[in-house]
């Protein structure tokens, strides 16, 4: 798939590197630091967004972002493009690192594990979210999901719950949780297509 990756319009004025996903993967596997530059330019914001949904403290989230890029660099060999897109792989590294941090003893003891219920509002309050003009209304979309979908998405996507934990927490059958995740993502798909 030769999908050209693009830079968000808000950053288009500065010189950025772009590669096709295939080229990017090849360069990454041959340990070309230019590939890392491209990845950073293209995805650091998206990944920090994912991380900070789970870890709202921006300094901690940026530490995790840094570790995420180091891990991407060090384990590029283990990425298999037949199993999924590069971003999915990177996003899951970022999510797993965030969840590990969230559940780590030192983080829990630091008292930084504030009520995650308010994470989204907290992040938004920092006004650093780089909403694309085209994507205005997304927030409304997510928050306008049926409350039952909203809950599940909140827990799994934002709080780092596993779907099994979410099912237990919401006292729902596992199958119902799966269906609700699917429905929520279908809503997103409709929006982006």
């Amino acid at each position, binding site marked *: 798939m030769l999908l050209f990756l693009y830079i968000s319009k808000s950053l288009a004025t500065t010189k950025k590197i772009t590669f096709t996903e295939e080229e990017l993967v090849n360069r990454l596997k041959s340990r070309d630091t230019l590939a890392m530059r491209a990845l950073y330019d293209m995805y650091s914001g998206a990944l920090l967004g994912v991380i900070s949904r789970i870890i709202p403290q*921006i300094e901690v989230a940026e530490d995790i972002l840094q570790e995420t890029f180091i891990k991407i660099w060090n384990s590029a060999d283990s990425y298999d493009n037949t199993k999924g897109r590069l971003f999915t792989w990177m996003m899951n590294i970022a999510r797993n690192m965030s969840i590990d941090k969230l559940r780590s003893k030192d983080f829990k003891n630091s008292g930084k594990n504030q009520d995650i219920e308010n994470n989204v509002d907290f992040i938004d309050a920092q006004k650093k979210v780089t*909403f694309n003009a085209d994507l205005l209304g997304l927030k409304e979309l997510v928050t306008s999901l049926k409350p039952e979908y909203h809950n599940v998405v909140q827990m799994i996507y934002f709080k780092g719950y596993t779907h099994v934990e979410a099912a237990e927490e919401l006292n729902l059958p596992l199958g119902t949780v799966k269906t609700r995740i699917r429905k929520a993502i279908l809503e997103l798909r409709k929006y982006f297509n």
Partner: protein
Amino acid sequence: MEEVKAYIESGILELYVLGQLAPNERVEVEAMAAKYPEVKQEITAIEIAMEQYALAQALQPTEGLDKEIFNRIENTQAGSDHTESVTIPFKIADDAKQYESKIKTLRFALVACIALLVVSTVALYSSHTELGAAKEQIADLSSEKDQFTSTVNYMKQTNSDLQKIADMVDDPDWKTVRLAGTAMDPKAKMTVYWHIKGNHVMVDNSKMKLPANDDAHQYQLWALVNGKPVDLGVFDVKPDTTGILVNMKNIAAAQTFAVTLEKRGGSPSPTMDQMIVAGNVSI
């Protein structure tokens, strides 16, 4: 196809994209994706949606964070490029330094050992010499002690003998018999003490003037009892004879004492022509 549709609608593909599946479930999804293009397409659609969603919610990282990251990445890159050429020589240099200091330490230890050895050898040699001197002294002292002991013994014996002789004067039962030289040696003479009640007989070396006997012969003392000779034992006369009194065999009665020169060990009867001294008991 109904089966594939149900599979897609189960929601497992969303969990797959969200990294929520156990390894065995992941393998299953990947197998399904390889087998059914619809599954693969569905996964890609989910991925793109999640990607778009993430991009839509992007947060601009603090400026300079990229520098930190790329410093680390380029350091590991530089590190891996030069690991062989830089790290190892550095290690060797480090090792060499360590060896050098080790050798220095060992050299000091060696010098200390040699010094200790020299001191020890000198001490040992001097001890050995002193020990030799001490041994010599001990031997000297020991032989001196032996000399003293023998002198003391000799003097004790002499003293005891002289005491006995002195005591004899006060004891009327002790008879002193003076034996005079015969035709064989007119100059010869000796003294015999005889206790008439205790029957003890002793010869007095200090008052003996007999020529020294050789190894093949000995002098034999006889008592003449009613004209018959009775053996009283043999004795030697030597230039270095020690002790004054020599005990002989007892005799109850005797009129005359005589000495003959006999073969070593004595004879059953006296050889009359070898009689050298004789004397009568004076009553």
